[in-house]
């Protein structure tokens, strides 16, 4: 008999064993019929949601944007300008049946600027074009809008007003000799501006960002909770089938925990990708799908996913992964404390409450991302995945703030790994105990002792 080799308690090593456990977990999970079915159903739902805007536009296609035109000092100008604008913006797109095509814009004369502005504010008018004669004889156009200053309507109007100015100049030119052409000016005045900590976002981007921010926060919340519960129930299943007794004598709690979180996380990401990627493709190609369904748009649609930049996507993935690790480790520890799978929900409740509170805080704070509360929450590990993300998207965040938040989050995950390993090591050999919130904290307290 050989003397026992003296080696580290971890045997083949954390990475190898955690990888083996993760792989087993992943394969076991993605092969189940429920996984495949749920993924397919959710993917279809997500594609449906992604198509919703096109559906709305389809329903909305008869709606005409009313734009007022006013020239207070030279009312005669309005007629000419309206004619040009109508020709330019209501041009029938190529390949469209002119008889069936409906004009997207209706231009109308407005008595005076004040009335026009009131109509814009009341959303009766989509915008107001105000014309004035400059001292040099050129025309000054002002476009008052509640929409995006950089939107398609504004861009289209800028071209059209130039054309109107040329025509007006030509009509005005005396027979004797030409008057020099003065370039018209075109200025967009947005009636609704959003500003964040000195950075002014145009209303379109601001709106798009807060919608996007909400969507991403909801995604993180749902993922943390759903996949976190996967981790907890999976641990509880190993415990209730007693396979845990074999596992714990073969591998360390740390290996089991890391493997579990990586395996379930991988399965979660797979499902995530299967749901999100087709939906994202639909969103990206929304224009083409829309023109196939609705016919060509007169001025092109609004850019989809406006405000989603690479840094934001990167931040989302980073905070999502770190947040998942943090929560999943605790979910695993919670799962290790119950003997029956039915009890998982009860013991995971404190965790679900924490993530829900963070989620609610992040969503509620979207309008005030610069507030002290939000700044503090963006550094606290449990809420930072949610809150820092909305700060990045909607406010001004210094790079060091992001770095600090990420560092705190990663360091806490490491600390939680130590704590969760101890809870897990204690929990997996306990059977027959009535689970509850109290037990969770008792185990946690015992673990840090």
């Amino acid at each position, binding site marked *: 008999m050989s003397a026992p080799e003296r080696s580290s308690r971890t045997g083949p090593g954390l990475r190898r064993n955690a990888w083996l456990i993760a792989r087993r977990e992943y394969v076991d999970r993605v092969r189940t019929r429920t996984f495949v079915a749920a993924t397919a159903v959710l993917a279809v739902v997500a594609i449906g949601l992604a198509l919703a805007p096109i559906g709305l536009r389809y329903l909305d296609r008869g709606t005409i944007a009313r734009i007022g035109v006013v020239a207070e000092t030279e009312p005669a100008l309005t007629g000419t300008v309206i004619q040009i604008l109508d020709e330019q913006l209501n041009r029938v797109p190529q390949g469209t049946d002119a008889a069936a095509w409906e004009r997207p814009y209706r231009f109308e004369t407005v008595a005076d600027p004040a009335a026009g502005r009131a109509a814009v504010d009341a959303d009766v008018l989509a915008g107001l074009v105000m014309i004035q004669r400059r001292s040099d004889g050129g025309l000054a156009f002002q476009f008052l809008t509640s929409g995006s200053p950089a939107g398609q309507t504004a861009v289209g109007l800028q071209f059209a007003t130039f054309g109107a100015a040329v025509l007006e100049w030509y009509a005005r030119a005396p027979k004797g000799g030409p008057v020099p052409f003065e370039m018209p000016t075109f200025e967009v005045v947005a009636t609704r501006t959003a500003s964040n900590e000195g950075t002014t976002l145009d209303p379109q981007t601001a709106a798009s960002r807060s919608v996007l921010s909400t969507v991403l926060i909801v995604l993180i919340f749902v993922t943390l909770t759903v996949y976190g519960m996967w981790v907890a129930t999976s641990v509880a299943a190993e415990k209730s089938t007693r396979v845990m*007794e074999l596992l714990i004598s073969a591998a360390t709690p740390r*290996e089991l925990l890391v493997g579990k979180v990586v395996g379930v996380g991988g399965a979660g990401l797979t499902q995530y990708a299967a749901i999100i990627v087709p939906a994202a493709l639909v969103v990206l190609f929304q224009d083409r799908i829309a023109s196939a369904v609705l016919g060509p748009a007169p001025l092109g649609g609004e850019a989809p996913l406006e405000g989603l930049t690479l840094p934001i996507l990167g931040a989302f993935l980073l905070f999502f992964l770190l947040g998942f690790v943090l929560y999943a480790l605790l979910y695993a520890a919670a799962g290790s404390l119950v003997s029956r799978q039915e009890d998982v929900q009860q013991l995971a409740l404190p965790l679900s409450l924490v993530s829900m509170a963070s989620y609610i805080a992040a969503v509620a704070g979207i309008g005030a991302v610069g507030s002290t509360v939000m700044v503090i929450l963006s550094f606290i590990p449990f809420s930072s995945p949610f809150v820092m993300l909305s700060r990045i998207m909607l406010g001004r965040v210094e790079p060091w703030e992001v770095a600090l938040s990420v560092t705190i989050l990663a360091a806490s995950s490491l600390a939680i790994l130590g704590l969760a390993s101890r809870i897990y090591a204690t929990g997996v050999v306990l059977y027959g105990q009535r689970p509850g919130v109290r037990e969770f904290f008792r185990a946690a307290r015992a673990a840090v002792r």
Partner: protein
Amino acid sequence: MPRGGYPPAMALVVDRLVKRFGPVVALDGMDFRVEPGQIFGFLGANGAGKTTTIRIVLDLLRPDEGTTTWHGTPTADLARRTWGYLPEERGLYPRMNVLDQLAFFAGLYGIDRRDAVRTIRDWLERLRIPDAAGRRTDELSKGNQQKVQFIAAIVHDPEVLIMDEPFSGLDPVNSSILRAAFFEMRARGKTLVFSTHQMETVEALCEAIVIVDRGRVVVGGPIRDVRRASGRQVVRIALDGDGRAERHDLVGWLDGFPGVRLTRPGADYVELTVPREVDPQAILRAVLDRGERVARFEIADPSLEEIFIERVGIRPGDDEDLAPATTTASAARAATP
């Protein structure tokens, strides 16, 4: 206890373990040693502290006091693959196929898949379930699942095999297959420690035992010594002729032998428990003097079951709802703070 030719440290030494779960004392000076290459019986009622001791040896629990060593090294410092563990509560991944499952466990011990598969197929063959390899675990009978679990405990070729109730739930055929596997493991130089409530199995397999009760050893050593140490013998007498040796016939003359008790009355033969100071030959003489014809007279050491009952006060495996069992439950409840 004999040292079996090994230096004192060359053994599995459980040294004065104390473990409390809150107010419950689960181990109260648990102390014994298992010689290398032995098949060792770890006996005790439920709740006596067997599983707690095993978990401390495997470093799944830490003791409050005392140490466990293997060849002089604290067991907590040893590689996990030193040990093979068959837990009392069986459990495997129900949906996984047997081969993948066993290769997975082998992998956790650092065995690469090709070697593992060879070992697994060999053992499946040996345990007469070669067809199980490609089947899902939950499709196997309970007995065959138990064999798979046994393979999971030895797939990494451990030095010491620790098994909690390896024979429970096995039919006689499977029991004898498993016994053969035990001898095979011993022939390979492995040390086997197991707990059971089946005393005949212990007598058939073990070289040494301990009987534990309330967290401490009540008796231990080589089986022969344990039996001898009981301080009494068993005498079985069968008389010639039908039904002559009934209880009422014997009660009168047994009074002449202080300390002798009738432990098994019966029509075919009677069994008496005799203290060491009484010479069994005197009993035989007394029976002959009464004019009886003796068809069978046998002097034996008491069975392990008798010793167990005498030392622990209950029949092995008969104790589910008695005090020690409740102690376990409260121990588990108290283990968290």
